[in-house]
């Protein structure tokens, strides 16, 4: 079990109508590592993440979480066999997810957002759930905002509540789908700081991001996607260091204007 990667993706194909978004992706995410998915818009990186979260169903290929098949298992002749949803839910419970748009529930306070699944799904007593939620909120530096509604919080605070909400369920894998893309630079910093702490605590993370600086400094592995294909993967210094892949060169050029390349 311990030898199995936290996430294993095998020959994953995803089509939207006639467009093929993922053209046979193979990927392994090792336990305790931070893997950053980068690439231009439309490269399929978010779709890949959403397939791993089973928010989208892939058309071909397999996904394993901690060695257990997610959604579909491989049959005796290699065909895809749909697994019962109860089993899928069990496997999915290992995964926490953070979205670009935060997706906090607007009718619940910060504390309510973090407590909700503990009570509704995990059947914890509200008192115990709130205690656990408060711990999570203070871990992201927001214990003083527990009683605020999402609309009363800044984008950065909302995203930190969303991280606390996912962590409260004690996942072993965290997926981040462009967690800072709708934040201004100042607020981006506070969210990245929380993610950096989480990485240091040994959480397995798969992060879709445009923050090349974060990817280079925190990522254990960089995966570069373009037009639905995995172009390069490796340690940050291998991927970003020279000599580097021509396509990565082009991609990084677009960041030069923003000064991010100086971080490399």
């Amino acid at each position, binding site marked *: 079990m311990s030898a199995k990667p936290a996430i294993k993706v095998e020959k994953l194909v995803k089509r939207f109508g006639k467009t093929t978004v993922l053209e046979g992706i193979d990927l392994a995410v090792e336990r305790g590592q931070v893997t950053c998915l980068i690439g231009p818009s439309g490269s399929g990186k978010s779709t890949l993440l959403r397939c791993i*979260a089973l928010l989208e169903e892939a058309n071909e290929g397999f996904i394993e979480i901690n060695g257990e098949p997610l959604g579909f298992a491989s049959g005796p002749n290699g065909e895809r066999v749909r697994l019962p949803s109860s089993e899928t839910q069990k496997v*999915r419970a290992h995964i926490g997810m953070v979205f670009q748009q935060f*997706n906090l*529930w*607007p009718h619940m306070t910060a504390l309510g957002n973090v407590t909700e699944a503990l009570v509704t799904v995990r059947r914890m007593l509200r008192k115990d759930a709130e205690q656990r939620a408060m711990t999570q909120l203070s871990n992201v530096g927001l214990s003083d905002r527990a009683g*605020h*509604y*999402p609309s009363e919080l800044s984008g950065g605070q909302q995203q930190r509540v969303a991280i606390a909400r996912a962590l409260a369920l004690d996942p072993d894998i965290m997926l981040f789908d462009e967690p800072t893309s709708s934040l201004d630079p100042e607020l981006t910093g506070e969210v990245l700081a929380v993610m950096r702490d989480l990485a240091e605590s040994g959480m397995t993370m798969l992060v879709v991001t445009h923050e090349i600086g974060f990817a280079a400094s925190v990522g254990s592995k960089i995966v570069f996607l373009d037009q639905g294909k995995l172009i390069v993967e490796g340690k940050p210094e291998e991927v970003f260091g020279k000599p580097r892949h021509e396509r990565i060169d082009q991609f990084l050029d677009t960041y030069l204007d923003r000064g991010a390349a100086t971080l490399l």
Partner: protein
Amino acid sequence: MSWKLFWLLVEAARLTILLSVISVSIGFLLSSLVCAAVMSTHRSARIAGKLFVSFFRGTPLLVQLLLIYYLLPQIGLNVPSEVAAIVGMSLCTAAYQAEILRGGFSSVPRGLIEAANMCGFSKFAIFRRIRLPIAVQLTIPALISEAIMMLKSSSLVSVVGVVELSRMAQDLAASTYRPLELFAAAGLIYLIINLVVAGFGLQLEKRMQWGRT
């Protein structure tokens, strides 16, 4: 117009309020079921829901009330006319409220449901804890309008022999020969009730702002 006549109207208005409150409440509970049916993934449930909505939106409440009034005894249910009135009004408003709710449900951002999915919510838990409260918040103004419409439509239940506000005004007008005063008074009472309902709606809207001020 004497106070005595006015008090008779107020007494009748109490029945109007009672009928409306009960029907709109039952209708609301019913409407969430109808709405769930219409939005269901099961074809048969969808068809049943759509048939329900088409019938109760597509025929006059007056006809529905008379149908129910004469139908219930046929199937062995001898109920007072007030109950027949409540059944008719509840079913009718359920159809309208279901359509209002459907609009609200389709406006709930998909990401909120995806977040609940990732937290392991069952479909029912997502409905109860996420989609319903948000859909209700989005639809309060329309639901309050529907409640006001029902309050006014309750005047139709006089056809099955329930003496509510309009019918009382009519009866008193006939016996006192003072129709103008009595209908003006009845109109005023309807207006006051509906102002209260509208005020309550505004309060509800404010309470469900969830931090937005």
